[in-house]
């Protein structure tokens, strides 16, 4: 177990170092996510008044779109240099590589969300700080659910010719429950009187999705990545 976590940590640290050098993925995903929010704001905010309940949906759509872009770019980088093969040659359990990539992706999405949440809050007059801990729990569990499946699919599709098209086509149908839970939970917290019991219910559902998705990904990563 120690070796597993050590390898996951090393892979995540390497991904973050590479990203710190190039800043390519973080800039493009943040810019893309912010653009999404601005486009929705132009469409859904009239005379300074946003459409009711729009904020929750727009926040999660922007997270999903930016996450898909980031996932594609992260693995494109490994594909371009074929370094994913070198990672697979490490003498450790191969799912540790998956966990390392997942942690790197979560760190990237945390940066995106740190920009997105205040932006959506300002553009759509949404008070995300009404129940800050529950909001944080929704963001963390929802992001883990989305990124866990996304990381597996992005790794799996790294050699596919149409990977850019296939990733969202495969990813969105499977992560729809996560997005719905995220939207409903966030909407519950954005009401005039935050519905905390309802938000807790959606958080528990997201935790359940996370456990299922992460377990399935850990289980299937090695056979999917060995070219059989």
């Amino acid at each position, binding site marked *: 177990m120690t*070796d597993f976590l*050590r*390898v996951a940590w*090393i*892979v995540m640290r*390497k991904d973050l*170092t*590479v990203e710190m*050098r*190039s800043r390519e993925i973080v800039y493009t995903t943040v810019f893309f996510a912010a653009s999404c929010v601005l486009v929705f704001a132009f469409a859904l905010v009239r005379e300074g008044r946003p459409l009711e309940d729009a904020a929750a949906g727009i926040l999660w759509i922007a997270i999903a779109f930016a996450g898909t872009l980031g996932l594609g770019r992260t693995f494109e980088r490994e594909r371009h*240099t*074929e*370094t994913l*093969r*070198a*990672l*697979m*040659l*490490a*003498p*450790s*359990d*191969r799912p540790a590589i998956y966990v390392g990539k997942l942690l790197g992706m979560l760190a990237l999405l945390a940066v995106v969300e740190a920009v997105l949440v205040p932006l959506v809050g300002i553009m759509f007059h949404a008070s995300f700080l009404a129940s800050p801990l529950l909001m944080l729990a929704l963001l963390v569990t929802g992001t883990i659910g989305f990124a866990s499946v996304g990381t597996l699919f992005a790794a799996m599709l790294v050699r596919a010719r149409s990977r850019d098209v296939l990733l969202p086509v495969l990813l969105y149908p499977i992560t729809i429950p996560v997005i719905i839970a995220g939207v409903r939970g966030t909407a519950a917290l954005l009401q005039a009187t935050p519905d905390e019991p309802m938000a807790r219910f959606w958080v528990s559902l997201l935790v359940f999705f996370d456990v299922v998705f992460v377990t399935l990904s850990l289980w299937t990563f090695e056979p999917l990545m*060995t*070219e*059989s």
Partner: protein
Amino acid sequence: MSFDFDRLVVDDVSRHFGRRKALNRVSLSCTAGEIVGLLGPNGAGKSTLLSILSTLVAPSTGQVRYGDRTAQQAGPALRARLGLLGHDLYLYPELTARENLQFFARLFGLPQASNLVDDALTHANLADRADDVVSGFSRGMRQRLALERALLHQPRLLLLDEPFTGLDDGSGQALVARLKGLRDRGCIVIVATHDLDLAEGLLDRLAVLRDGRLLPVAASSASLRDRYRDTIQAAAAGASTCRGRHGQGGAS
């Protein structure tokens, strides 16, 4: 967790990609302290065989045994004894030469990683460029660094796909000397190459692949180039005779 072996056996291995047969019933064995040359025209199946030996690709049929175990039986510990230098160099262009080697040393859990990295940089003749990012290196410099990356953990089985690509004469000769040194220390080295001049005098044994099949190589004292040419020509003549027979059979 530790695992070692002194014999590699490829037993009747085939590999299909869809309907295309990349390898067709290949059998080969190598022992510790041997350099085997894997020659063949483009698309013969050399890289596929190396990928199978490195456990990155599973054979469609047949098996590879490392000592008395298959890759599945040996598990991750086997990969600690395998070194692969692919046609792609498996280096991160955004990282420096030192960071690349440090990353792989840590990934392999090597003790005293810093000393190993310093030694590797010296071997690669890149000590003065250790803190430069790899994207600024020439192909030859990257090739030397990638070789050291593959050797960091002192593998028992070293798989090299076109290791002489981009190397100048001096670096090529240094690589030949390095590989001979590894052989003397009991490493099994399998080299897929088209550079027959540099490989001359390096290889202990020759394996020639053509259309996914391993061809019989006649024992001879002729030069490597001549032996390779004769093997390919004999196979081509055999194939055309075979086609001729089939053609006659079809016509009659």
